[in-house]
């Protein structure tokens, strides 16, 4: 998979700097939106803004209301109350003006399987003014599908459908690109390429709204994140900001593990995190056999090292590890399961 983002991809968004805090143009504004379906509250009053050039992560477990929210952003369903603006146009009142600035993939990139990739793109190009054949060829090149574009979509793999979906979304030079679980069906290499591709789109001024139930993905890709659970936003903020609310872990490795643990237990300000409460990336832990995970203020590390050394315990490694969003998430939702 090769997202070759050489030429300009989206609209060049002029970024008018509003006086004051230097905040840029707001591309998407969601204001106190609620949705009730058959008397059940699915979305309970969510609000957030996305600015130009921003990669905005929308994180929540399956069934938390992510897709319902996305469907409301693109006028597939109507909010029960509240308002959504895209580039200043209210989505429900002026759908043509608002949706002109949006490219999206809702859930899976479902295209007409009995048409070729090119015919699909032509179909969607006809639904919007100012998209000529050259533009179609351009988006095909951007997603690197030149050699399969004239095959029927039913012969495509999920990854190729995903790319065709992105090509479709880019056709109208959108200011906002909405991707729902975009890494589904991609291999690790594809995911990495997609991440770089998304970055390059954002650098050109496009805003991206990316939903996911995978924390690591959002953490790697996004500037800001909103966390949703049971139809409510638990937090909105920059990824670093949210993570800094939690202390870091300090991971120890000793030549004599049991002796080391005994000493650590004696120390004030140090608590050993039991295994079931650890929320560290498993791939990190796999590289640290016999690691002892503690939670402690960083300024106490020197004292602890001193105490351990005096007791004759050999320290083979010490490292500080930031908690993942997962821990943040579990703390916020108090145990709502995410992957």
């Amino acid at each position, binding site marked *: 998979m090769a997202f070759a983002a050489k030429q300009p991809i989206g609209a060049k968004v002029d970024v008018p700097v509003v006086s004051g805090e230097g905040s840029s143009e707001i591309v998407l504004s969601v204001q106190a939106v609620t949705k009730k379906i058959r008397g059940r509250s699915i979305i309970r009053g969510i609000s957030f803004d996305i600015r130009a050039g921003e990669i905005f992560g929308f994180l929540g477990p399956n069934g938390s209301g992510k897709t319902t929210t996305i*469907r409301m952003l693109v006028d597939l369903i109507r909010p029960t109350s509240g308002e959504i603006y895209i580039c200043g146009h209210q989505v429900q009142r002026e759908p043509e003006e608002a949706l002109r600035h*949006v490219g999206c993939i809702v859930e899976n990139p479902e295209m007409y399987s009995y048409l070729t990739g090119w015919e699909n793109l032509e179909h969607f190009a006809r*639904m919007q003014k100012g998209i000529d054949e050259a533009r179609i060829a351009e988006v095909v090149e951007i997603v690197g599908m030149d050699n399969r574009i004239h095959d029927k979509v039913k012969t495509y793999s999920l990854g190729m459908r995903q790319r065709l979906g992105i090509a479709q979304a880019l056709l109208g030079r959108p200011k906002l690109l909405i991707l729902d679980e975009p890494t589904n069906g991609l291999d690790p290499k594809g995911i990495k390429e997609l991440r770089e591709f998304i970055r390059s789109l954002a650098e050109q001024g496009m805003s991206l709204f990316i939903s996911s139930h995978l924390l690591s993905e959002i953490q790697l890709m996004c500037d800001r994140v909103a966390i949703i659970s049971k139809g409510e936003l638990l937090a909105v903020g920059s990824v670093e900001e949210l993570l800094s609310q939690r202390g870091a872990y300090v991971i120890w490795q000793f030549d004599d593990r049991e002796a080391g643990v005994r000493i650590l237990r004696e120390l004030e300000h140090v608590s050993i995190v039991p295994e079931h409460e650890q929320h560290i990336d498993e791939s990190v832990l796999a590289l640290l056999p016999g690691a002892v995970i503690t939670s402690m203020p960083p300024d106490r590390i020197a004292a602890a090292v001193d105490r351990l050394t005096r007791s004759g315990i050999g320290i083979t490694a010490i490292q500080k590890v930031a908690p993942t969003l997962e821990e943040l998430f579990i703390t916020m939702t108090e145990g709502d399961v995410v992957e």
Partner: protein
Amino acid sequence: MSLSNLLPLVRNETMKVWKKKRFFVVILVLLVLIPVFTYAQMKVALNNRDKFDDWRLQLQQKITDYQNQLSSERIPEEWKQYRRIAVQQLQYYLDHDVNPDSPNAVTFSRGFVEASITMFIPLLVLAVASDLVSGERSTGTIKMLLTRPVRRWKILLSKLIALTLYVSLTLLATVVLSYLIAGIFFGYGGWTLPVFTGFVIHGSEVDSSAVHAVPQWLYLFMVTGLTWLSAMTIACLALMVSVLVRSTAASIVTMMAAIIAGSILTNMASSWHTAKYIFSVNLELTNYLAGSPPPIEGMSLLFSVCVLAIWAVAAIIVSFSVFTKQDMLN
């Protein structure tokens, strides 16, 4: 809104039906069925030719048969009424020295369209109409379609226009193919043959004062026009069901049930008068041209056209108001 806005959308919808190969299925079904009926028709013609040298004798024999049935006590009164009317009409043809069953390609086409109007043509219409919206919903493509900057009513309108186009094409293909195939066996003549129309039925009496002869090409044209009206009613209703029901199978079954119910009612419900307001009882518009008695008393061409128009308009109103407001949850 200008036409130039709508044209690319209509092109999209037309292309999708075409690429789904729905219309090929329609043509294929016609190509299989028409030769079968042509063969059956040819057998009848050969059989008659063996028995009668002159079609006049054959017609006279038919009239005599019917008259004999009229004097029989075992035949229900309702049937007798049909027979009485038929006898008077056949007599009219005989008196004017016109063969109503002259075997030729135009007569066959006319007969084929007349026989197809209640079941076969509606079925072909359903092949195209039933998944216009439900198909996009079950495959999920509706999410791409409705998130483009085009208002929903325009999308549905473009589907309706494409559907109208395919209904017209289906009828055209039916007439043209039946003419071409039947011509191989019966010859391609019969365009100018006179056909009598304008029989007015009062109870069991036929008022032939308004009867006049039209050339068969004109009659075929009128038959096809009326069939188009009834096919479009089916198309509008199928579009509505396709908007309301998410699965294409459910949408076809619903429409077929309604059409079959109508044809059963047509045969048995002459005493249930309210049934005449059901759309599927009114589909057989061509009967009025031929002067057959209506399935329920009080029905006329104007009445049936109005009933069908009301159903069609109601279906369009429901389709648009639901489609433009509906939440696309999956």
